[in-house]
Every structure is written in structure tokens, then in C-alpha cells.
């Protein structure tokens, strides 16, 4: 059983809870399996043809017995259900203070973008003890981000953001798998999550020395010509983007949406889908011109635009609020 200990070890905030429930279920189901099997064997032996057993009476129905083994499982199932949804809600509810990291999946690799601009492929470095929120999308087919040691998994879809969060509680390297079949090299779409002590992580993070994600977005914003219309000096009638993030946006069809990551992504790639009220539908699409990583950088930039500039913004603390 070489290597099993390392694999079994849970390394996230919810791993112990999941394991506790799993092994409680193993005990409960093991008991039921054993009880039924033993009964089957005992009856088979005792009532085998030719045995000297009492076979009197009609034993082909009994309402009380039927109701007992209908209601007892029903109550047990409701108990298991209640236990599991409590834990499920914990897994699914995003904490407010999590570090935001972006993941773009493609056949057959994981691309990671940190808020401070560092990028990784098939690796994710994070500090121990801090909650992490992954905002994920796919460039092609459906993938699934699975870290067995954290006991979590979330499908990653094209044209859509999904999110997951976890708090790593042990340092070390943990397997990362793609769990949704995605084509030829699905089995090679593996990576590792490296959980580091805060000091070691700080050293690793400083070694990068690149522009932050928002700064990369700002460069793209100029390069792609977005600033020509959305900039302060623009003559074109286009919405001002400062302070837009997280605010409600009235649309030309009378409805209102929240300007979250999903809305910004759609507005960049499919601008005619949801046109802001009072503005002409003149923005060109950037679909097939920029990839998901550029969209994420642009979103990070737009998010960083504050109508009342804060003197000391920390790009690493920024959070994207895409609704589930």
C-alpha cells in the first residue's frame, strides 16, 4: 500500500469533514450490508431443503414489518441528506476574503493567472492557511478541476465562469487532475498544487516581478483600442467604465444586470447581447481576437478602475464576484 497514506491525507479545510462523513457512511452501509448478508446466509442454512426447521404458518406479508423497513431507511436517508447539504453549502459558499486566482483550461493544460500578474501552467502555488477562490473558464470543451487531497472538484465550462474555493491547511504538493473527459490526452491533463509556508510563498511570489494582472489589462486596454472610446478623452458616446464593476447596469431592453465578470466578458466578446441603455450598439466584437486570459486581464483592469481613486490598492486582494 505504498503511497496511500499520502493520498488519503486530506489537506483542505473541508477534507476532514468530508472524510468524517465518508467513513460514517462506510460504517453505516457496511453494517447494513453485513446484516442483510448474514440474514441471507442464516436463512439459507436454516431453511435449506431437508433441514429440520419449523415452517408452519403463512409468512408472505406483514404490514408492520413492511412499514418498519420503509420508514427506518427513510429516516436514515433524511439524516444523511441533512448532513450532506450542510457540508455541501459550506463547500459551495464563497468566503468574502478569499484570494482570487483565475484558471483557464484548454485541451490539455491548466493555465493559472494570479492577480499580481504571475502565470503558471499545470501548477498552482498558494500559501497555506489562506482561502483561495478560483474563477475558471475553458477555451474549448468541458474540463473539471479536481484536487483529491482537498476533496473538491468543479467543472470548468466554455463561455462561462464557474468558481470553487478551498483553504489549504497542509503544505506540500498535491495532485491536480482533469476529471471530465476532454479528448485524446485527458489523462495527461494533470498538474500539481503547491501549498507553501507564507515566508516561502512570499519569496516565490517576489521572484516573479511582473506587472499585475490589472496592469496587464491596462496595456491591453490601450493596445486593443478600448481606450479610444471608453477613455476620458473619447469623442464616441461609450459608457464610462470607472466604478462600473459590481454595479447594476440598466439595459436597452429595460432589464437590469449586475456588472460582474460574466457581464464584462459578454460585453467584450458579444457586445450586442446586452446593450447598456442610452448607448448605441456600435461596439465591435473581440471574439476570436483575444483569448480568455486577455479577457480576464481586461476584467481585472476594469475592476481596478475606481471613481474615487484609493491611494493604496493591493491588487492581490481583489475579488471578482461572479454569481454562481
Amino acid at each position, binding site marked *: 500500500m505504498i503511497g496511500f497514506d499520502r493520498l488519503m491525507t486530506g489537506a483542505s479545510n473541508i477534507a476532514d469533514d468530508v472524510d468524517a462523513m*465518508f467513513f460514517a457512511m462506510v460504517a453505516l452501509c457496511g453494517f447494513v450490508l453485513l446484516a442483510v448478508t448474514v440474514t*441471507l446466509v442464516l*436463512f439459507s442454512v436454516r431453511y435449506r431443503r431437508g433441514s429440520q426447521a419449523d415452517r408452519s404458518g403463512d409468512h408472505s*406479508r*406483514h404490514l408492520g414489518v413492511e412499514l418498519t423497513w420503509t420508514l427506518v431507511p427513510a429516516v436514515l436517508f433524511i439524516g444523511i441528506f441533512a448532513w450532506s447539504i450542510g457540508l*455541501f453549502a459550506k463547500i459551495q459558499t464563497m468566503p468574502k476574503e478569499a484570494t482570487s486566482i483565475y484558471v483557464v483550461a484548454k485541451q490539455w493544460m491548466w493555465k493559472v493567472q494570479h492577480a499580481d500578474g504571475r502565470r503558471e501552467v499545470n501548477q498552482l502555488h498558494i500559501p497555506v492557511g489562506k482561502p483561495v477562490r478560483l474563477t475558471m473558464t475553458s477555451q*474549448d470543451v468541458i474540463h473539471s478541476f479536481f484536487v483529491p487531497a482537498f476533496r473538491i472538484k468543479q467543472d470548468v465550462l466554455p463561455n462561462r465562469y464557474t468558481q470553487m474555493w478551498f483553504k489549504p491547511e497542509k503544505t506540500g504538493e498535491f495532485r491536480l487532475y482533469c476529471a471530465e473527459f476532454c*479528448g485524446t490526452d485527458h489523462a495527461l491533463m494533470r498538474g500539481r498544487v503547491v501549498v507553501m509556508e507564507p515566508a516561502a510563498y512570499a519569496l516565490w511570489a517576489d521572484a516573479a516581478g511582473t506587472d499585475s494582472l490589472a496592469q496587464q489589462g491596462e496595456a491591453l486596454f490601450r493596445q486593443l483600442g478600448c481606450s479610444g472610446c471608453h477613455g476620458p478623452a473619447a469623442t464616441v458616446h461609450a459608457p464610462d467604465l470607472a466604478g462600473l464593476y459590481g454595479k447594476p447596469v440598466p439595459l436597452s431592453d429595460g432589464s437590469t444586470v449586475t456588472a460582474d465578470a460574466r457581464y464584462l466578458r459578454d460585453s467584450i466578446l458579444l457586445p450586442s447581447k446586452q446593450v447598456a441603455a442610452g448607448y448605441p450598439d456600435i461596439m465591435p466584437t473581440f471574439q476570436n481576437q483575444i483569448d480568455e486570459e486577455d479577457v480576464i486581464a481586461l476584467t481585472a483592469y476594469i475592476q481596478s478602475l475606481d471613481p474615487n481613486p484609493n491611494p493604496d490598492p493591493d491588487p492581490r486582494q481583489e475579488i471578482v464576484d461572479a454569481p454562481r
Partner: protein
Amino acid sequence: MPHADSPASFLDAPTGFRSWLLTHDHKRIGILYAIAITAFFFVGGAAAVLIRTELATPQGDVLTADGYNEAFTVHGVVMVWFFLIPSIPSVLGNILLPLMLGARDLAFPRLNLASWYLYALGGIFTIACLIAGGADTGWTFYTPFSTLFSNSNVLLVVVGVFIVGFSSILTGLNFIVTIHSLRAPGMHWFRMPLFAWTMYATSLVMILATPVLSMTLVLIGLERVFGVGIFDPSLGGDPLLFQHLFWFYSHPAVYIMVLPAMGVVSEIIPCFVRKRIFGYRFMIYSIMAIAIVGFFVWGHHMFVSGQSMYAGIVFSLLSFVVAIPSAIKVFNWTATLYKGSISFEAPMLYALGFVGLFLLGGLTGLFLAATALDVHLTDTYFVVAHFHYIMVGGAVMAYMGGIHFWWPKVTGRLYPEAWARFAAILMFFGFNFTFLPQFVLGFLGMPRRYHAYDPEFGLLNAFSSGGAAVLATAYLLPLGYLSWSLFYGARSPANPWAASGLEWQTSSPPPTHNFLETPRVDGGPYEYSPSQAEAEAEAEAEASA
């Protein structure tokens, strides 16, 4: 060769290829199905052998990555649509349903033959896909991979499955009409054998769910060939829509596979226990509850798909609800043994094997219905092990039990009992040896559909592959001794098990129109008496002593 005292059997009546390929006799059509699905079982089995050979070691060294993906796709598609779904309904149901109801045939004999031809045509497309190089989408055809990204022959296999769906629909329609209109005088609904009830429930699921699959497959074709955006987001579609449609069919499809298995076991156990089945009415309510509630649990395949948390919670609750009637059935089978007079011929061994394996399959299903555990376990080998316990440990064991139980009825021959018992026991152990380690692999985090895997999973996979070798041997044995018995087996009396169903009241094999006189029914099924069985056994022992 008819017995002197019995009418010409349906096997002897007219002979020659034409008489078989144009037959309207439900029993002959059942045999046509048996031959076809047996062939497909070994095609799907060969793919399983390739898969387990590849997975015997962590490196991807036997097949290429694409070759492996094609192997598990063939395995899934063939086993689900060309073996499991038609197995018990189209073979045993076809042959037995009219006999059990006291009817001369199914309600629509020509439609019945048409169903077989549709099955065969669908099969030809699937084999054509294989010959053309296979498909690599998995049996689940998840979009947008299947529509825009896969370079394999997806369309051929989709057409094959589309066609075979109509075979299911027509069979379901035929069974429902037959059960409603062709029951013998006195055969009230609550006098029907449970096997007939499961055929009824299964048929309902077939005609209500299969059209959704057909439509979904058409939509895949439209998107793949004409670029109509339905599932692919770059064309404005929604990939999750596909999953909803697919599982709306494919979860009920699990009950198409397992309800008939429950029906078979409910016939075998009372016969070899010589006792009425425990809780006949509760068994019927459970069958119907499974068929109905089974339609509302599909979202439990999608807890981590991006579906909303609240949808996940509702589907989780309904999944626990559908587990209750299954639990009732297991307890009732067990209770049937109480104060019985039990003998352990091969069909009974298969039936007992079914109860144990189905129970473990059902219990592990509770893990997956529990949302928080499913997040970790879904798409791992835990799921693979779970559904194999239901579909192979459950449905295939029951199918084998049914084949053995009714073999003398259909062929008029007896098979070698010792070989049959040996195969049943070997299958049980081979199966557990193959799939128990996969539960552990899944909990440890090994994802499914991996051509190569990390070395720490090596030991358990080697066990599993070893078990698969045992299991494959066990599946080959019946092919050998049952074929042998067709030619050299002893002639069977009309009712070798002293069973109570109407199908046993006519000769074995039955005449073309089943009964010389329409039977009249004046009591419930399973009129067995354990004390009488004991007295007869004692008398027999004294006579031989």
C-alpha cells in the same frame, strides 16, 4: 423433434432461415434478440478486456490514448444500448410475457419483428462506426466535445443509437398494450407475476424517456453537421442543456436495466424457496415508485457541473427518495427466505448473487446521492464501481439467472448443473475481485477515463485487472455449456423446477401459439408451499433409499 404426447414446438414448426427472419412468433423473435445481444455482449466484453489490459499498469503502453478512448466508448455504447437495455426485456420479456399472461402472442407481432430489425440496423451503424475507426466521446456524448471537437466517427454511432432507440420504444409500446389487453381470464392486475409488472414499468420508462434521447441525438447531429448552435457556446448554445437532456433519459435508463432484473429475481427466488414472495403488493408499489420517481433524479449526475446549488439539493433529496423502494425490495427478497424450503440450483445462486451485489451497488449510490461526498467522488472510479455493481452485478447476474431458469422452457433441454453452479460462483467472485478495488481507487482520487495514471494507483488496478480475467472466464463458461446443451443436453420435462407461473403450464418448448387451451387463472402468482416441498423431498429420499 416433438415429444409423442405434446404438440409440435415453436422450434420445430416450420424451419429454415426464412421462417426465422420473417417470423411473427414472439418466442422466435426473442431468440433472434438473444443471438444478437450475445454477439454484442462479447464485442463490449472484448473492449472491456482491452481497457483492463491497458490499466493493468500505470503507463499507457498497450493502446494509444485515442485507442483507449475508443475502447471505453465502444464498451459503454455497446453494453448500454445493445446489451443491457434490450437484454431482459427483449429476450426474456419477449419470450415470457405472453406466456406469463396466458396470451398467444404479443399484441402487435409484426411490430415486434420490426423492433428486432431496427435493433439490427442500429447495430450495423454501430459496427460500421467501429470498422471506420470508432468514436471517442464516451457513451455520454458530452458537448461541445462530441459536436465540435471530436475528430472521430461520432455521427455513425449517434445514428446507431438513435435507431436502436426506436426499437426500445416499439417494444415498450407492444408490452404495454399486451399487458392491458391480452391477459387471460382471471389474470387480474394483482395476480400478475412481478416479472410482468416490471415489464410494464420498464415499458413506461422506455416510451416516455427514449424519445428525449432521440431528440438529443438529432440535435447533436444538427450541430455537428450543420453547425446549428444548440449546445456549443461559441455558436450561442449551452453545453449544460445537453447534460440535462441526456440524463433525463439516461438516469431512467438505469431503471430500464435494473427493473427487469428485479422482475427476474422475483420469479426465481419464490420458486427455489418454495414460498410465496414476501410483500407482493409492496413489491408492486416499489416497482412503480422506482419507475416514476426515477424520472426526477437526473440532476444528481450534475452536482459539480455548474448547476445551481439549490437544484443540486433538490435532486439529492429525490435521489434518496428513489432509494427507499429499492431498499424495500431487498428486504422483501431476504424475508422470502424465512421459513422456506430452499434449494440452490444455478438460477437461485445467480439470484442470491444479484441481491448481494445490487445491495452493495445501492448502498454506494447513497454516497453519490449525498452532494458533499459526490463532489469528491464523482467522475472517479468510485462511480465506475458503483454503476457496475448495479448494471453488471445486478442486471447481468439477473439476466444470467433468468437465462438459466427459463432455458429448459425455451430450448426443451437441460444444461449441466454443476458447470452452471460453478460459473455462477466464479462470476460472483470475479466480479467483486474486479470492482471492489475500484471503490478504493475512487476515494483515493483516481479519475475515470484515464488512459495512463499515477503510479500510486498501480497495485489496486492490477488487482482489478486480475479480477477481470476471472470474470471474463466466468462469462465464457455459459457460452460453452449452454451451447453444448442445445445439442447434447438431456430433454427437459415441461416444468423441471415445479414452478407455478402460467409459462410452465404448457409444454417445453411451447407450441407456436403457446397454449392449446386459453388458461384460466383463479389465484395469485407464486402458489408454493414449503411444507409440501419438504414432504416431497422426504418421500423422494425414502424412495431412493
